[in-house]
């Protein structure tokens, strides 16, 4: 197969492989979560009750909507609707900002209550509680970094759409970035019940 023609199937294959590695990256944290949950079920339950369900649920809705907008942008570019694509992409990036804003409010509220990594209150408390919040900050922090990376990629894609480097026939880059965004969403779909809804 010559390299001269663009292999969009190959590009998507590569992206899927990359997404597997991202899942495994978060998988490492989830392994730790499952081991420590078995060890400290009571403390994990108590820790979960201290997280703000409203913030978490709102963010879930925000991320799900952003994924919908991203998926619609792929359909839009395939029909050649450039303006619509740009609008949908801006919507996705906007949702990313809303998500990060809510996350900021949430974290600062926790910090205000003396719950942060290595905090004296956590060290004095039962070991399982400290583990729960360490994992919480680790997982949501890592996820937050992925949200930022995704937002940057989305913005870059929007510029490419604007310059018509991504267009009705050549749009595999947009599709790949959207796949990445769906992964960010998917990971959150696991984080939300594991940390916020745990009994």
């Amino acid at each position, binding site marked *: 197969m010559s390299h001269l023609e663009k292999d969009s199937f*190959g590009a998507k294959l590569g992206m899927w492989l990359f997404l597997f590695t991202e899942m495994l990256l978060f998988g490492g944290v989830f392994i730790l979560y499952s081991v420590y949950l078995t060890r400290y079920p009571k403390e994990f339950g108590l820790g979960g009750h201290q997280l703000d369900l409203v913030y978490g649920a709102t963010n879930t809705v925000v991320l799900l909507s952003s994924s919908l907008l991203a998926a619609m942008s792929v359909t839009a570019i395939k029909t050649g609707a450039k303006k619509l694509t740009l609008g949908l992409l801006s919507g996705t990036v906007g949702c990313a900002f809303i998500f990060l804003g809510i996350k900021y409010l949430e974290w600062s509220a926790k910090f205000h209550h003396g719950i942060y990594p290595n905090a004296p209150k956590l060290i004095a408390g039962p070991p399982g509680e400290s583990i729960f919040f*360490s994992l919480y900050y*680790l997982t949501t922090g890592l996820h937050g970094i992925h949200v930022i990376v995704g937002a940057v990629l989305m913005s870059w894609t929007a510029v490419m759409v604007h310059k018509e480097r991504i267009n009705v026939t050549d749009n595999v880059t947009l599709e790949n970035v959207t796949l990445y965004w769906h992964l960010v969403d998917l990971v959150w779909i696991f984080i939300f019940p594991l940390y916020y809804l745990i009994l």
Partner: protein
Amino acid sequence: MSQQTAMAEGGFWRDTGKTGIGAWIFSTDHKRIGLMYLYCVLGFFLVGAFLGLLIRLELMAPGPTIMTAQTYNAMFTVHGVVMIFLFIIPGIPASFGNLVLPIQLGARDVAFPRVNLFSWWLYAIGAIIVLISLFTGGGAPDTGWTFYVPFSARTTTNVSLAVFGVFVLGFSSILTGINFITTIHRMRAPGMTWTRIPLFAWSLYATAWVQVLATPIIAITLLLVVTERILGLGLFDPTRGGDPVMYQHMFWIYSHPAVYIMILPGMGVISDIIPVFSRKPIFGYKMIAFSSLAIAAAGSAVWGHHMYTSGMSDLGVLVFSFLTFIVAIPSAIKVFNWVSTMYKGSISLEAPMLFALSFILLFSIGGLSGLILGAASTDIHVHDTHFVVGHFHYVMFGGTGFAFFAAAHYWLPKYFGRRYKEKPAIVGWVFMFIGFNILYFTMQVLGMEGMPRRYYDYLPEFARLNFVATVGSWILLTGVAIVVWNLWRGLFTGEPFTGNPWGGASLEWSIPTPPPTENFEEDPVVTHGPYDFKGVGVP
């Protein structure tokens, strides 16, 4: 550069718009990227080998010999980090994989040439970060290359930066793996069915899957060490409810499969060289290809055998011991098939073949001593002794290291258009082989007698064998020096190497020497297997 003008008949060396170093570090040509990897990994190999020599010098006699205990700790850590992450993991797949794989498949480049260049940049950046970590902060890390908690979370040496460097290197490894998988799936020439893929490419395929599926786990584990040090999360700290054994589980979930990232490409090299120098089709092509995948799969489930003495449950020990023995089956299949290939072959003992043959012997010794470690009962006796050190040097240096030099003698003349001198290559090989066995077999005996690994000092009864091992290290390094010098000089100024002197039947031998930038004038159509020597000129 005078190197380029020295190169016979241009090829991809000449054909470039840019000049100077920019023509290399910004090139997306897989051959240039492969050569850049090669120079880097060879350089780091020599650095690591020098550190190994210093370690042996220190252990030559009991008591302090040439360095302090702290320096010694840093020395074996840096030796391990450099050799594992900078030499042996990228060694064959990134350098020879990049050089050979696309041509063997009949492609003009890998699937994502720009990602390929990016991988090399990540490798270079990661290597620089690791190097910086040695000379800044609290000094070179002293934890051992495994970065075990709780010590790695507490030591004041520069662990955070070194670990971050390794994280970047892991990213490079993942991207190379993704690139190779996609290349093998999408870029094969017409007629190149799955059973006509050369076995080196097959081994890279299995390796790439391990790279993709295992490396993310070490990425997160290393991130955890950094957060543990900077934020004090306490996830592995028993006083805070964490569990240090969890670190070992997560570390070895990657690092044991990583052992197969190291050895599988070496096996692929040997599978390509043995038939060519025996003038016989490989015996059991499908079984060798399949056993690569089997090793990759089974090797991912045996990490627990590093932790028999860490307080795992007895059932856990039993299961991991059983699984560990299973990995020996596909490895043995390969060894038997190589030997069967040579049976009644017309064997020509040139340098690549000598390295390949010694690979089989040394890898077998390493593999069989691995069974002693895989059985829990015997492992308890030799755990963390020099026996382990001898074992993994037999597999990694005797296996992959010798395969690396076999590949260098076999393929590099193709890319340089010149070849090394045969006699010094053989003399160097003899020194390497003898010195290697004196050094590492002695280590295994020392371990059997109970000398622990990583210790700065030892009891007087170990003095004699340690002296012998140190002398072995001098012979080994003399051999390495001869081989590297001979290769280096020969490839830049040696006799012209044209056509297909080895008589190989895979696609890389069907194109001009050195290969043109685009590899193939027109896309080839494959009509026969890679080991079908009918019609290929006998040298």
